[in-house]
């Protein structure tokens, strides 16, 4: 059911987005729990310095924050953020055999979510002309860096999703 850019999107699309945010959050939590259990990397704040050195990028969500809430801008930022996280998770490939299934599930769910947003934006004619790219990704040169990177990326992803969830919640209110 196509809609004009100004009016809100179909309710079912926004409800699906909320469900997908919760699903990706659950996957992210599973990854964090396993990194903590298997490798004692339980506190991202212990890895800030390493994060700077590795150059792990963060995804902006200014149009989703309460101060400047704007539906289409928020969706665009949410989509490119998800694309960024797809790239970061791919860079973590080979993290460890025990974590690989959890990482795969997270990647699949993020990819699904990104495609849904993109296709909905296309359906309402609001998709950017050029799809966003992942940009330069950090290179993790050791097993430890992949695990530490995984802890930082998972933590950043949870904060990213928290902001997105609040904005989507706002947009779904009748």
């Amino acid at each position: 059911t196509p809609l004009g850019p100004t009016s809100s999107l179909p309710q079912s699309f926004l409800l699906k987005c909320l469900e997908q945010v919760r699903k990706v959050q659950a996957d992210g939590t599973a990854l964090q729990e396993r990194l903590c259990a298997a490798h004692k990397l339980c506190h991202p704040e212990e890895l800030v310095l390493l994060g700077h050195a590795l150059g792990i990028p963060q995804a902006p969500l200014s149009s989703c924050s309460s101060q400047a809430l704007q539906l289409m801008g928020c969706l665009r930022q949410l989509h490119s953020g998800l694309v960024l996280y797809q790239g970061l998770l791919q860079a973590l490939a080979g993290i460890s055999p025990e974590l690989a299934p959890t990482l795969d599930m997270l990647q699949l769910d993020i990819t699904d979510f990104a495609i849904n947003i993109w296709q909905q934006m296309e359906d309402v004619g609001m998709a950017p002309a050029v799809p966003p790219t992942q940009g330069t990704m950090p290179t993790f040169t050791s097993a430890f860096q992949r695990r530490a990177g995984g802890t930082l990326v998972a933590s950043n992803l949870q904060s990213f999703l928290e902001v997105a969830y609040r904005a989507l919640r706002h947009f779904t209110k009748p």
Partner: protein
Amino acid sequence: ECGHISLPTSTVRLGDSITASCTISPNCSHLGPESQILWKLGTQLQLGERQQRLADGSQESTITLPPLNRPRDLLSCCLRWGNSVQILDQAELWAGHPPAAPHNLSCLMNLTTNSLICQWEPGPHNHLPTNFTLKSFKSRDNCQTQEDSILDCVPKDGDSHCSIPRKYLKLYRHMGIWVQAENALGTGKSPQLCLVPMDVVKLEPPTLWALAPSPEVAPPQPGCLLLRWELWKPSLYIEQKCELRHQPQLGEASWALVGPLLPETLQYELCGLLPSTAYALQMRCVRWPLPGQWSDWSPSLILTTAQQ
């Protein structure tokens, strides 16, 4: 080669017949000039309609077999040799029907194995080796257009179900699915389903508990019961509504339904019940407001209401 059977096809419909020919080459040692070619279908010896000598000196016999009424048979080309019958070549004959279109195709998304499991009914046995393949494609609209290549899911031999792993699925997009049956005589296709995996999630029922009276929890009023329930853990991210049903353990009492109920409730008082009576309580949930399938009813929780 001493003898060679040639057939137009080795598979025909039950009741059809086949014309076969067998050529015995001249250099088939010990071959007398006018050796008689015989045919054996199963265990029955028969003469061909026509036997002729070909230009290159080989002998050729042709036979039109009676309508085949057995799914599988062996046709042998033989030669009388002294007082024995020598087999020189053999061919397998199959008879059956083209496969019926599989029917009753249904699919469920399993959150435990994270795969879409589809099952179908193969239809009547067609007596021939038949391959079933579950075929699917992703679609941007209601399965009118195909977004990418067709995925084949091949079930284990004899199975009438197949499961598509998570990595081949787009959980929130439409996909067209059908079953194709194929044997030597043709192909049968089931009607095509068009579904969204998340809309066919198979939820496990919630877990029901009695709420034991404690300092924080006052004991229930007479005719009331204190309960709590928890959603099935892998489905926590899915917004759901639930229903409760209860039935006094008295003879042929019927179920009474209570709902819709919120999926997560730490404390719920169910009232309007008969005092000091044992009740069976069951609960089920469904994805809501997004489309979904009801879970089965949970196993019964048996609780007894307080005395008057």
